[in-house]
């Protein structure tokens, strides 16, 4: 666990993104450069001040390499080039890696980015997810080649234990769509009802089409700086209060637990909250990885935001809406905003915590908190952000 001196020492000083689409017609480098330039300008920096790069991918290397981005951005130097291969599970640990380099004094401003044309131009590769001695030889021969087949069995076990069915997933999908409709960069803008969810086709049981993450082109980026360097920004300072990364084991068998559905989230959340010096009651907003509705609900429970088996009920009762107890996936998340392997979750938390709040909802001028146009949560101070399975997590805080 990090020393407490890491607490609030670093800040997310800039955020940026490209358009999200099904077919960008542009290169991943162009998309990533657009998002990077936006994030750097947002931080009030010049590109030449970036001196470290972190990107993330899962399986195939579909995001531009740091060396490409050094060239694309014309950086005079780069002191950290880190490729995190854990994909969405480690989105928060990618931010942590950047913060550790800043905190160590090795870098001043690290850019964390991902740009990819996932559906329109997937990288050609015969064996995109190959790791030596990995778990894939034990899943691929049986047709288990998709995230839903990797995590679905654990979700099914959790559903069975708590007497849940697919219809219990509908309210989360509907809520996140409502959030996305207040987000100008979100891909999915059509209204969704519980009926729409229940009539959407099965993809991989227990998941229907509207239980699944979007698969899209696009790029997102953010800048990590020392909090001292970020002070004076018009956005206020959003600090990294705590960070953790690291899986507790490959998901062939459950994560070393006594049951078949406990993810790394349960152990990580306890340590993360202790590191931050907070309890669940202090959390105002949560951006939790949502590859599938059922996984997001498991994250809600295993991060302690709802009792075991109660997340779906709590969503249905409005506990996680924009004006609820804890605003959950307020951008629409992967289900309805778009998928950049978790960077969108971090960016949404930063936007919500900033002095001016989110800048891409439908408000004209100051935030009205009218939920027909405004997605800004009322004065949040603490955000939980989690990668897939709780393999990484962040507590972000708005500096008083």
């Amino acid at each position, binding site marked *: 666990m990090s020393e407490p001196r890491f607490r609030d020492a670093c800040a997310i000083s800039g955020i940026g993104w490209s358009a999200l689409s099904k077919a960008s017609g542009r290169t991943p480098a162009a998309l990533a450069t657009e998002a990077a330039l936006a994030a750097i300008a947002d931080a009030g920096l010049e590109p030449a001040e970036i001196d470290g790069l972190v990107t993330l991918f899962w399986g195939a290397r579909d995001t531009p390499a740091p060396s490409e981005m050094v060239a694309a951005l014309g950086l005079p130097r780069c002191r950290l080039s880190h490729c995190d291969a854990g994909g969405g599970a480690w989105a928060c640990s990618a931010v942590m890696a950047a913060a550790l380099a800043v905190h160590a004094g090795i870098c001043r401003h690290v850019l964390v980015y991902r740009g990819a044309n996932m559906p329109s131009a997937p990288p050609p590769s015969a064996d995109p997810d190959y790791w030596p001695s990995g778990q894939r030889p034990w899943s*691929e021969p*049986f*047709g*288990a080649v998709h995230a839903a*087949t990797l995590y679905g*069995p654990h979700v*099914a076990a959790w559903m069975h234990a708590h007497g849940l069915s697919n219809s219990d997933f509908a309210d989360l999908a509907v809520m996140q769509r409502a959030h996305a409709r207040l987000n100008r960069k979100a891909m999915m803008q059509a209204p969704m009802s519980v009926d729409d969810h229940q009539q959407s086709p099965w*993809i991989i049981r227990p998941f229907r089409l509207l239980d699944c993450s979007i698969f899209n082109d696009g790029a997102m980026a953010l800048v990590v700086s020392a909090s001292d360097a970020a002070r004076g920004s018009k956005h206020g300072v959003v600090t990294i209060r705590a960070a953790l990364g690291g899986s507790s084991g490959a998901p062939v068998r459950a994560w070393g637990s006594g049951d078949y559905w406990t993810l790394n989230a349960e152990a990580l959340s306890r340590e993360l909250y202790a590191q931050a010096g907070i309890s669940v009651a202090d959390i105002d907003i949560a951006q939790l990885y949502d590859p599938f509705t059922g996984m997001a609900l498991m994250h809600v429970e295993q991060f302690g935001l709802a009792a075991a088996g109660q997340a779906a009920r709590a969503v249905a009762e409005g506990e996680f809406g924009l004006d609820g107890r804890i605003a959950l996936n307020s951008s629409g998340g992967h289900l309805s905003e778009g998928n950049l392997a978790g960077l969108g979750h971090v960016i949404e938390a930063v936007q919500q915590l900033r002095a001016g709040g989110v800048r891409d909802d439908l408000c004209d001028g100051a935030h009205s908190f009218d939920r027909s146009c405004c997605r800004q949560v009322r004065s949040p101070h603490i955000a939980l952000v989690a990668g897939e399975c709780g393999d990484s997590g962040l507590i972000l805080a708005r500096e008083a």
Partner: protein
Amino acid sequence: MRPPVMDADSAPFWKGCDEGRLMGQSCEGCGTFRWPPREYCPSCHSHSSRWSGLGGTGQIVGLVVVERAPMPGFDAPLPLPIVHVELDGTGGKMVLQANLRSDGKAAIGDRVRTEFTDAEGAQRLPVFVLQKS
């Protein structure tokens, strides 16, 4: 679907399948089953292990059913049930993922036994069959 990749750790398992036997690896140091198979025990880090035949019965602890091809080139017949089965006699350590040969509905908790595929010239794979109660 892609055939299994055999390596020094997994070869005894796949050779067993070809002979119609479900093989499991346990630690000679502490007796714990190792899954997936590996040279060193994750519990006691002993390098010694033994392979033995398993009964092949067990209980479904996780399941999904692929209803739509998740990606281009996915050529398995649909719907395709994929189950995780905790194998009897392995101390809960060996949870094998494989397809379920079933025309009925399967559920978590159902009991299964192991058979093996038998396609000409292909590596034989374990396949689970529901046990009649």
